[in-house]
């Protein structure tokens, strides 16, 4: 049975891969459409789940039950009902609005949010689950997520409302500032892995949880929290949700939005939350490499056949999604617990705390990386089995320039090796 399944899978993979390699438009389009459908589903369904989750989490935090009725138990269809309601709502555009920009802004936001997923892998090693395997994936994701702020500014400007404009300006200031510490934080795992390829970064952390970059050294541990803070700020979640601060700016940049357009902003927000959390999970929490290397222990690796390897990858995908969901839940927890900061305090947090801390941690991690052997803590804790895992070469290692090459280059320049 397994043999047959392996055969079928091989055939499918060959068809899919072959069609891309043969450079045929049809094959490419099919592949692209499949990827798009999968990612759209992830973001849209993710948003559905998150909105439901947010209701339940907030309910529990506030000593309530949250939705209970729609869809039978737990109100699990509540978001769908909301969606239908939003679809049927009147679509309002203010008279003074810049109609084109007003209409287009939500889609810009959603596209930016969705595009980030193109380069985010969900499983790695021999057969990465990723729509487009980029060797600058981290950089790409950060760059694309930065585009979302455009939607907010365009919406704020086009709404022809002062409150919206306030929200947009706040968002601009906030996001541009927070990109600095966030970038600094992201550079730390990039530096440790020696690659900007997310697949490679994730693979580098394989094994037990001690190999996660979170536990790589004390500096990365702190960097993770700084990153998470900045990530929260960059996706506009409480306590940094100044762009839509309802007690001050009515609803900020989306004051004038209603119906479907508004829901696109909403989906973009949840998509970004997921993207930021996924990035955090891959960069710091080992990505698809769990606290316990279940797949390896069970032998679900590519060496034992493609189907088995695929299963292992699938487990890894569930793993990374679980971590991301957990981080998103933490964001919700924070949102329903803390008051909102003031704009100057938000900027202070960024410029006076996050940026210097991130910079210092970057230097610290670099020094640690330079002076101490890799995985000091992991070496203390890990089992022989995990050590064996580590000994296996990584598929991404071929990307790395070996030291000999560098040395040769140095000598060619007449330098000291």
């Amino acid at each position: 049975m397994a043999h047959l399944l392996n055969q079928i899978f091989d055939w499918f993979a060959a068809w899919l891969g072959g069609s891309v390699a043969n450079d045929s438009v049809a094959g490419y389009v099919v592949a692209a459409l499949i990827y798009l459908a999968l990612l759209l589903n992830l973001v849209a369904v993710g948003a559905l789940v998150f909105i439901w989750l947010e209701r339940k989490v907030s309910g529990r935090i506030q000593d309530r039950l949250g939705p209970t009725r729609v869809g039978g138990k737990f109100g699990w269809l509540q978001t769908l009902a909301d969606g239908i309601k939003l679809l049927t709502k009147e679509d309002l555009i203010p008279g003074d609005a810049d109609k084109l920009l007003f209409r287009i802004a939500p889609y810009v936001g959603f596209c930016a949010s969705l595009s980030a997923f193109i380069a985010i892998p969900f499983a790695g090693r021999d057969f990465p689950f990723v729509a487009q395997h980029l060797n600058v994936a981290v950089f790409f994701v950060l760059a694309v997520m930065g585009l979302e702020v455009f939607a907010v500014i365009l919406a704020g400007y086009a709404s022809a409302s002062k409150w919206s404009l306030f929200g947009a300006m706040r968002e601009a200031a906030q996001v541009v500032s927070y990109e600095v510490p966030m970038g600094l934080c992201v550079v730390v795992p990039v530096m440790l892995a020696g690659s900007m390829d997310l697949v490679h970064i994730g693979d580098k952390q394989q094994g037990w949880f001690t190999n996660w970059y979170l536990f790589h050294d004390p500096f990365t541990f702190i960097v993770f929290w700084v990153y998470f803070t900045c990530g929260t700020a960059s996706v506009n979640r409480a306590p940094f949700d100044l762009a839509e601060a309802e007690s001050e700016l009515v609803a900020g940049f989306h004051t004038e939005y209603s119906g479907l357009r508004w829901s696109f902003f909403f989906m973009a927000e949840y998509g970004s939350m997921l993207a930021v959390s996924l990035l955090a999970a891959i960069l710091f929490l080992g990505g698809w490499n769990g606290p316990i290397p279940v797949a390896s222990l069970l032998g679900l690796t590519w060496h034992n056949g493609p189907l088995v390897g695929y299963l292992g990858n699938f487990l890894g995908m569930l793993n990374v999604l679980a971590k991301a969901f957990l981080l998103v839940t933490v964001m919700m927890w924070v949102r329903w617990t803390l008051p909102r900061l003031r704009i100057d305090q938000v900027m202070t947090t960024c410029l006076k705390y996050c940026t210097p801390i991130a910079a210092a941690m970057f230097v610290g991690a670099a020094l640690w990386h330079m002076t101490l052997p890799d995985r000091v803590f992991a070496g203390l804790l890990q089992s022989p089995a995990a050590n064996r895992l580590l000994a296996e070469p990584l598929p991404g290692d071929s990307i790395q320039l070996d030291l000999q090459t560098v040395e040769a280059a140095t000598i060619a320049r007449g330098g000291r090796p």
Partner: protein
Amino acid sequence: MNPAATLPAVLAIAWLLPLAAFAVVWIGYSLPQLAGRRPGATAQRFAGWLATSAIGSSFALSMFALVVWLAYHPLGGDEHGGHGAPPSYSGDYYLLAQFGELRLSIGYYIDALTVAMFAMVTLISTCVHVYSMGYMDEELHEVADHEVATSDGNYLHRPGRYHRFYQYLSLFSFSMLGIVLAGNLAMVFVFWELVGICSYFLIGFYYERPSASTAANKAFIVNRIGDFGMLIGLMALWTSLGTLQFGDTQLTARTSAGHVKMVVPIEQGIFSKLRSEDQHYHLDASAMVRSAETDESAHPGYWLLFVAGLGIFSGCVGKSAQFPLHTWLPDAMAGPTPVSALVHSATMVAAGVYLVGRCYPIFVPEALLVVAVVGAVTLALGASIAITAFDIKHVLAYSTISQLGYMMLALGLGGWVAGLFHLVTHAFFKSLLFLCSGSVIHAVHSNDLRHMGGLRHKMPWTAYTMLAGCLAIIGAGVPIWGIGFSGYFSKDAVIEQAWSFAGANPSPTYQLLLYVPIAGAFATACYMFRLWYMTFVGEPGHPHRFENAHESPPSMVGPLVVLAVFAIGVGWHTPFMSDLSVTSILEQARPAGTQATTSGTLLTELTLPDEHLSHEPEIADPASQSAFFAALLGVLLATMIYVWRWLHADEIRQSFAPIYKLLSNAWWFNELYQWTFVRPTLALSRLFASIDRWVIDPLVNGLARLFAYAAKLLDRVVDRGVVDSSFDALAHGTWDVGLALRRLQTGRLRQYMVFLVVGTLGLFAIASLCWKYALAG
């Protein structure tokens, strides 16, 4: 014990201890301030203790190093003097980088001078640290700065910055010791800049005060001018010698494969390259030119050496506040007084003199002459201004400038030991004087001499320690018996060298270099006693302040006494060990080949006499006597004016009004720089602003008019009836073209853009004629 291993280690620890104190204070105090946490008074006091104990330990280690040095290098023996290289140890602590041949390393060069400087710097720094505990006391709590008014009309209230003071003080000590210890010029330069930064921070300590922040900026910028020259000097040395190391260094390298150290042959330093043993330590200018064929007559290497020497000296001019870059030092007095004592009199400003001394082997006689002349000018300038200043710290600041001039003069005239000896003694008595003035300021809360007077009853310790300092600086002593305060010996050494120089160079211009220091001795005595009298003798100038004056706390008086002892005795030979004295230690460090009578290559009549010649009685006796009488006259003059009151200061001031005005305005140097540098820059920019109107307009208009006139001329000369109409048309056309051309200058950005495109297209069109791909070819 192997001194080659012990000394670098001990001195390195002594050097790094202040850095550790700085790091602890910075991480423990200044970083949390970012998070809004202000340390309390106790915690801040702890920072002070930390820094003080660090520098105190450094002092102890330096003394240990001095003892080790003396134990292994017996003094007095003339085993090397004039014939061999001084005993020294050099090497690298850490190799930073290697760019081709240039090795940048943290290295050390230890000789007697290094050890002596270490002891001197750490001792004074320790004293100042202890002193500051009392002086900076008010910074422990919230401070109301009465010199700064906020926009709402109140005085500025700010939290105390006690710990920050100590933080910078520690950093400064570290940097200064770094200069002293440095094994190569690159490292010197780095620490050179670091002390500059520390000086900037410390001058601007009260940065809310406009005067302080301006002074800090000024000090920093003026120093940059000098450092620019220094960089040129470093480049000259590096490009020609390929190294910046002072001494010969044994290279060790780590192989890339393992961790085995391989010993690479010795790398020659600057000193041995320029004055190699083969050449009997004579300055070998040909070492500066790397190509084999050197033309003796063209002296390219000699010129390069001259440039290198001048370059390094220009750095020293900035740091040591020599003419013409001396203007920053008086302004630097805006910092707290302990800073003035440590940074701006005893150590940092002396670093310039130290560097000239350290790099002495590379100075050609002509460069030394420049040093001497600049030193003499500075000497005269500083002394003359100090006579008229009323701010107690300004008097001392100009005095510092003047004394630095003495040192430079001595170095420039070939008195290597004399200059550095004066550096050491000056460090002690000038820091003493500054600390005393700080004590006075602390007591009366004013800098103005006119607000003081009669204070010796109120604060006897301060008064008499300061008297000791004054006597030391004027060089009080008895020439016949040969005893005196420390300044007596060092200043005599300088003047003796000048005397010796004047004897060796009969040219009348060179005689000036003798008269200036003697006149300076007179002025020094005059203004120092004027200072002391105005402060401690006579009637109180400001009764209210006098009432509230009091002796300073023991933590301030203690350092005064320690320094006073040194100010009196540092020039003496140690009892029972007559070999042990500062001069003999310095003599041990004299660079090889510099103890000989040398003459210039470019200026052939210039002769720099051997320093030992100046100790001959026929030179030494008249020199020390003339210095003594000059000083005595100065004291007498001051006493006549301020104690006996035979002469009235105001009358003198009125009768010499123009001179007084010149001096009290510090020779108008600040105004001079305003006129020579700032204004021309403005004028130049104005020139550019109007260039359009003055160049383009007349051009276009003139062209049009030219054609118009030409047309009219033709019109008159040629028959009107025949060609009248055609010429008219031509003239009009030209006129129109002129107008049209004029209109091209619209000032519109966008039209210029269009012109740009037209031009590009035109170029393409032309290019297409010559090049086949340009246009659809």
